[in-house]
């Protein structure tokens, strides 16, 4: 597997989910299990730049593909990804349990659509539940991140 830009050789069972492998074999516990059955989005990761529920993907199916988790977003110097920084600036998380999933969906959205309307962002993140009801703040953060990234030329 290629996880966060690194080759990670790992033995997996045929029925093992990507969330299981990431959390319990690779120690990447930023990927959360809220329901483990494709309802909540807390386990969202990127596979080849597309957001997926890691609880509902078998690990063997991502062999050779690029998996990015929330731990893989900071740059080499530890600087937060603009989406992460925007989530901090907007005090977007409350309890924080759904936050990694929200961030991964936001990163996927901005890769595909650097200039989303609030409605587009809302639709793009609709697969990520938040029981604290921090939706408004998450959308504020997505808008802030999009603006930062456009200014920095990270999006075109």
């Amino acid at each position, binding site marked *: 597997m290629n996880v966060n830009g690194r080759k990670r050789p790992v033995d997996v069972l045929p029925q093992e989910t990507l969330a299981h492998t990431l959390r319990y074999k690779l120690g*990447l516990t930023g990927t959360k299990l809220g329901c483990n059955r494709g309802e909540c989005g807390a386990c969202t990761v990127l596979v080849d730049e597309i957001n997926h529920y890691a609880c509902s993907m078998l690990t063997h199916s991502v062999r050779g593909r690029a998996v990015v988790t929330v731990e893989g977003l900071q740059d080499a110097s530890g600087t*937060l990804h603009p989406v992460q920084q925007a989530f901090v600036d907007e*005090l977007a998380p409350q*309890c924080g349990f759904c936050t990694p999933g929200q961030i991964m969906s936001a990163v996927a959205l901005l890769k595909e659509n650097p200039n989303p309307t609030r409605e587009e962002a809302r639709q793009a993140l609709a697969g990520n539940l938040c*029981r604290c009801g921090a939706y408004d703040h998450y959308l504020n953060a997505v808008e802030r991140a999009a603006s930062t990234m456009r200014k920095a030329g990270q999006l075109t």
Partner: protein
Amino acid sequence: MSYLHIGKNFTPPDIYGKVTGKAKYAEDYAVDGMVYARLLTSPMPHARVKNIDASAALAMKGVVGILTADDVYPAEAPSPALLTNEPVYVGDPILAIAAVDEKTAENAIAAIKLDLEPLPFTVDPVDSLRPGGPSARTEGNVFSSREMKAVSWTQGDVERFVTGQEPSAPAPYEWSYGDLEAGFDNAEVVLEESFVTTGYAHMSMEPRSVLSFWQNGKCHVHGSTQSQSFVVPFLAKMLGIEQADLVYVSEYCGGGFGSKIGSYPVLAIPGYFSKKIGRPVMLRITREEEYYVGSARVGFQGWIKAGFTKQGKVSAVDLYIVQDLGPKATGGDASSAGGAVSILYQPDAMRLRDVPVLTNTTPRGAQRGPGQNQIAAVFEPLLDKAARELGIDPVEIRRLNAPDSNTTINADQGPITSAFMEEALVKGAELFNWSERIQKSGRQNGSKVTGIGVGQGYHSAGAKGYDGLVRLTPDGRVHLHSGVGNLGTYSYAATTRAAAEVLKCSWNSCVIHHGNSGLHLPWSSYQAGSNTTFTHTRANYVAAEDLLAKMKRIAAGALGGEPEQYDVADERVFDTRNAARSLTYAEVAARAIELGGEYSGEVYPEDIHEVTQRAVSAIAGTGLVGVAKDTLPVRGTVPGLTVGFAEVEVDLETGKHEIVEFLAVADCGTVVHPLGLAGQLRGGAVWGFGMASLERHVYDPHNGLPANVGYYQTKPPSYLDVPSSMEWAALDIPDPDNPVGARGVGEPAMGSATAAVMCAISDALGGHLFNRTPITPDVVLNHVSGNGQSFGPLAINTF
């Protein structure tokens, strides 16, 4: 008042962990030698365990041990049991198996032969009250005044109640004040309605997984709780150990909303198991199990009669509530509902009658505004109905009844600290353009009709008597020890800013210690009841005042003069008569260590809690210690108050509605942390929208099985169920009984939103009252089509 920290946004230190994935919730920990436990839960709503044959399970390779009810703290009914031989709901944990991996544990659970004797059960309080009806527990069917009772109604009582007439059955618990008869005599309009508010799960995003292990005679527990220090005495008791022998870590909690206030049964299971088998035990709770053990809101079935004078004043309220308590001890919701009515509308006379009934459904607990928010969904639409009959505007009738600082509350009509509800209504009406917007009421566009609503919320939002602990070290750092749990509101950090304010120090000089009892944290309140902001700004304030007084004494001793002539600025303590005579905070801390005694924590006040005493003893000698119990005066109940304004569009063809605009206005004293407050107001509103029209649980009356054990079935609001942007405002008028003027707000923010949306839906439909939560599309369609509902007015478990 101008503050350095209070009222300013800041970055709470734990947020970085949340956005980078480094935050460790209980299930994210792993320790060497850890084994995995799985629970065997009851498939029946009420049963007796006749025999457990675990021989095949224990013979399986990789299975390490079993834990049954005989191994754990015994619970007296209806207190919650850790593990039980008389399960009282589907999903009640009977035993646990530990194995080298989860799959093996799961296979072992499947290999256990369980012999259960089915017992009578009920999933509807009214069925239990019928003559000869089933009791949820062998000890009785009603829990009132801390006693189990057997209560039975006559057939006539039942018939009256289920058809929505004035209840005739006596209530086990009752309170009243004023002359009810005179109150109704003075009324121009008297309204009578029956109502149902359905219970539903808390369903925090983080299931309550727990890790425990023993080290050097101490039990370490990594759990998920709203509170931190408050958990320690109760969890120690559940584990049967001394408080000093418990290390409790809950640095992050993935949501609680009342379901994880203090210690709960699952939290203690791995501690017992780990001791029994000599291995660290991780107990992961699945989403489905979280629906069983994770708690739910108390359901109401009730009847209300309210009188209104010609001017619109509420003159009398008679309230009768049958509470669905689930199988375990809880049940303050009805009384809290009565309290909310007494403060929000101040009837001249009022009576509350409460019938708290046990059922074999998921255990109930406090859920965001327990009682207050259910009754907001009932009383606020009723208020609109009265306003309509009297020809008064909905905002105006609320202004007429709005609580102010002289308002009284509850049966004893006790005082409150302060209230400015009229100001909140006025501010909200202005920001929402109420007078213009109300003109759109009932306007139809295609199949969609516009409705406008306003709603109010209340919760008592402050406590007193807890401890604060701050410390200055010779490196010049200000250590803020917070025993407050990290439930997602950031109040563990925001309340420490009251200490930084007193010490006039830079936020960069401050370090917060929290989330682990091993970090020497003071005794703290429960992180519930919207109390933390009020309670712990006070506790931090008194501890910082203690530190400040000691700094001045140290400076006077070192530099001459009297302590009173010293002040602080820029992290120096200086002589106000000669500012050149000063010591830095770092120097003061070093001197405190030399002086010892009360300065360095070797000696501490006698009135602090033993949790704080242990914390102070552990840090003694490391710097200047400020520690105190909050004994500041409080004149009465501390009210958290909010108003919500909603515009909805109800689709007459689908029965669905969309919330087009929402505004929340808070009367919560001084704003301490604006973005944090915004989060609570908006998040509370999302909860309110869920209660108004989405969330409920349903039980199969024939088998007692829950129909909702998944998000898709319980329907917590998603992005698409709420407006993508919501406005908020706060009065920012200080409360006189808090040193920084703050009161709490998290819970009323939900009730006012529930009420505003329900009132708006009712407004769109010409004032029709559904008297039920949630208002689902089928209920709306049945009304619109004139078909009538498919169930009686008091029915529950409908779908």
